[in-house]
């Protein structure tokens, strides 16, 4: 606290180093993912051009098929295709989605915002639930609330998000129809704030709850160990009120690792989004993964795989940057 300028500058340098290194390593990692996906496709018995022709493939001549492969950029070896695809990537051209019959870029631009909305709200639900329930459970460790939280947490951990989604549909589509269980809007309605808000509620809560158990158990565990820390014991010894001890002294120590954990939970959030969007017919990018897979739409699948890899790496980077900015000790470690 005496000379804030110096740590800030060191922090800035550390931050720059972190970002630089991650980008340096992230680019080859993403490239590696691209190569792996193309190798998988090359080894697959499935020919993407079949998708283009559909049932007509059985009557199409060899020349027609070859011409279509050329037009779709499917001719040549796997590395030719990969090269062309990567070159296209640099110019923002991700190819043509075979199942949606529109450019992959357009599919992403149209659908990504809806996924971000859903995932953002789910994360918010999850954060609020995890922080409140985790704190209370740790505070009264061994009490009835703690027992309920840990039991429910462990049980939910074992259930895939789609089971939760089915439960929500059972309640809201059949027993108690107060919230819509599918789609973005009502029939023919424009996607207004009210319309989308009503439709996003259920999927967002389901996705949020499905992500909560792991977070809540983490908050609880790290808060319990933080409550044992010397500075917390010191605060207690000074006779500070229990709320102050828990919320001002213990919780902040427990929150830093929580941020890291949150960043690293992104793959599970994506996985959850794939299942929840599919069950709730949410028109996001994660549900497009499933429809692309069912239609063997390779250009779209490849682009979405890469997109998710970038999202995962970015999520982890943002979390670590946040930790670096917030933790008074981290700058000394770097």
């Amino acid at each position, binding site marked *: *606290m005496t000379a804030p300028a110096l740590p800030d500058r060191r922090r800035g340098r550390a931050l720059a180093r972190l970002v630089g290194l991650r980008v340096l390593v992230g680019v080859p990692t993403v490239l590696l993912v691209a190569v792996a996906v193309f190798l998988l496709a090359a080894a697959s018995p499935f020919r993407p051009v*079949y998708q283009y022709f*559909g*049932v*007509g*493939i*059985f*009557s*199409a001549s060899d020349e027609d098929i070859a011409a279509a492969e050329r037009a779709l950029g499917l001719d040549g070896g796997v590395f030719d295709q990969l090269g062309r695809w990567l070159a296209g990537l640099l110019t923002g051209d991700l190819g043509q989605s075979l199942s*949606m*019959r*529109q450019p992959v870029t357009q599919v992403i631009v*149209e659908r990504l*915002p*809806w996924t*971000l*909305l859903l995932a*953002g*709200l789910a*994360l*918010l639900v999850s*954060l609020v639930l995890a922080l409140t329930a985790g704190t209370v459970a740790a505070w009264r460790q061994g009490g009835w609330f703690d027992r309920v939280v840990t039991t429910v947490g462990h049980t939910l951990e074992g259930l895939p998000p789609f089971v939760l989604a089915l439960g929500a*549909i059972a309640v809201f*589509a059949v027993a108690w*129809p107060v919230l*819509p*269980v*599918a*789609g*973005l*809007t*009502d*029939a*023919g*309605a*424009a*996607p207004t*704030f009210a319309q*989308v808000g009503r439709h996003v509620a259920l999927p967002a809560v389901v996705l949020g709850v499905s992500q909560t158990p792991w977070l809540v158990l983490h908050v609880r565990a790290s808060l319990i160990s933080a409550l044992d820390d010397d*500075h917390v014991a010191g*605060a207690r010894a000074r006779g500070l009120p229990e709320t102050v001890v828990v*919320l*001002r*002294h213990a*919780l*902040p*120590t427990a*929150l*830093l690792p929580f*941020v890291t954990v949150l960043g690293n939970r992104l793959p599970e959030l994506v996985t959850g989004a794939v299942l929840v969007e599919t069950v*709730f*017919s949410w*028109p996001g990018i994660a549900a497009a993964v499933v*429809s692309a897979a*069912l*239609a063997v739409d390779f250009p779209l699948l490849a682009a979405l795989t890469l997109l998710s890899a970038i999202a995962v790496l970015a999520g982890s980077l943002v979390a670590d940057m*946040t930790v670096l*900015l*917030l933790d*008074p000790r981290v700058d000394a470690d770097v």
Partner: protein
Amino acid sequence: MCCCVIALRNTVVPLLAVVAVVTVGCAAPTPAPGEPTPAGDGTELTLADGYEPDDLNPLLGYGAEGASKFYDGLYARDGERNLQPALAAAEATPSPDQRTWTVPLRRGVTFHDGSTLGPEDVVATYRAVLDPDRAATIRSTVPMLTAVEPVGTDAVRFELAHPYGSFPARLTSGILPSEVLEGGGPVSDLPVNTRAVGTGPYSLEEWRRGDTMIMKANERYWGGAPAVKRVTVVFATDDNTRAQRVAAGEFDGTVLPPALAKAVAEQSGMELREHASADYRTISLPFADPVAADPAIRAALNRAVNRQGMVDALLAGQGQPAFHPIPGVLPDQVEPAAEFTYDPAEAARILDEAGWVPGPDGVRARDGRTASFTLMYPATDTIRRDLAQAFASDARAAGIDVRLEGLGWEAIEPRMGRDALVLGGGDPFDPGFKSWQLLHSSNAADGFNNPGSYANPQVDAALDAALRAPDEASRTEQIRAFQRAYAADPGMVFLVFVGHSYVAQDRWDGYVPVVEPHTHGVTWGPWWNLEDWTPKP
């Protein structure tokens, strides 16, 4: 301690801020393209469809059963299945030997592109059908046709290879403008595949593959401009997804499996529309397979399956047992003697007699060959999946092991000659012709026509005679003879005629129930005569 407090604020506040920004950023909604604007006045209609056509080309079979919104044929069926002139001005006039048919054309009809309908369009369309180089798949629907000529400025003459008494019934396929057919080459390359140009009550506004199709009313339609001005069809292949979305009020109607349709109608208060059909589901048996081709196996299977059980249990009562392709909705043409009763004991007796002996696991065998074959079903079709499972279960009870494989069509089609398949088809208009396509030996292994290559001389003879019959009475007699011949040596196991179930909003007048052919999706259904609908006041 001080640091900790700051850290807390610094952690929570930016996190909340980030989430808030993300949320707000997204919540300012960008209307998805193709999203219909609201219309409460009933001039717009949004439907969900479980099936998306591969193309919109009538020469490739699009709208072959009629009720296509983009095209008209020369003739069309009304709600009572009677043939009515459409682009034809009146009934066709046959020559005395019924080998030449003259069709007068309706005047003043225009295509969506503005050109006027004339004999040259009809001639160009049917010449494209006749030209083997253009590979029109509907050629097999007019096998008797040999030539087509214009007659003056307002009529067309069709020449046939042999007398065919109900030829006008073959003329329901859509007419294309001659301009789009210019240039030759396979019709599968025509731009009209994706940009329909016809004379129908609706024209294509936009088709986003895999997503939506938007149709708008043809204000110059010869039958009068439709009152429902804009129709959006959203493609959602999964039955449960459609059920959920339609129950959520997202659509004005959709097609659903019977049990699901009933449940959705109950929950959502929408109208349940159940239509009888001539849409059979049959197990096509491959004659290349020594087990499936065995006469005793085929005869036994036909007596081992509980057809009424399937209708009641799997179709929620919405359907009828099927023994052959002739549907019960045409009682005159059905031969009562050609029915199979559910009789497991009789099935066992047939198999015992033929030397198929039960093994230790209950599966029969003969001369070292196990009574076992593979049955394919399209994995995403829940009705065919359930029928396949029920068939396998019934066959297993008779000692025949049916191995199931749930596949996509692209995997099924190349194997149709080698493995059994849950096949669907049929129409209530000309079931004799349909039977000829499905079971006549001359159509063996021709795509979905007779995929198992069934060949039975008596069946062939009866079907040939039915097609050439000079009048309705002798035609019916031959169709009944065909059923008797088929039942004596069945080449497939017909299971059920599936009723079609739909849920629909009751906001329009003009709905007429109809008996449906085998169709996909919402082209038929309550909306088969959508052009005549008017919004309820």
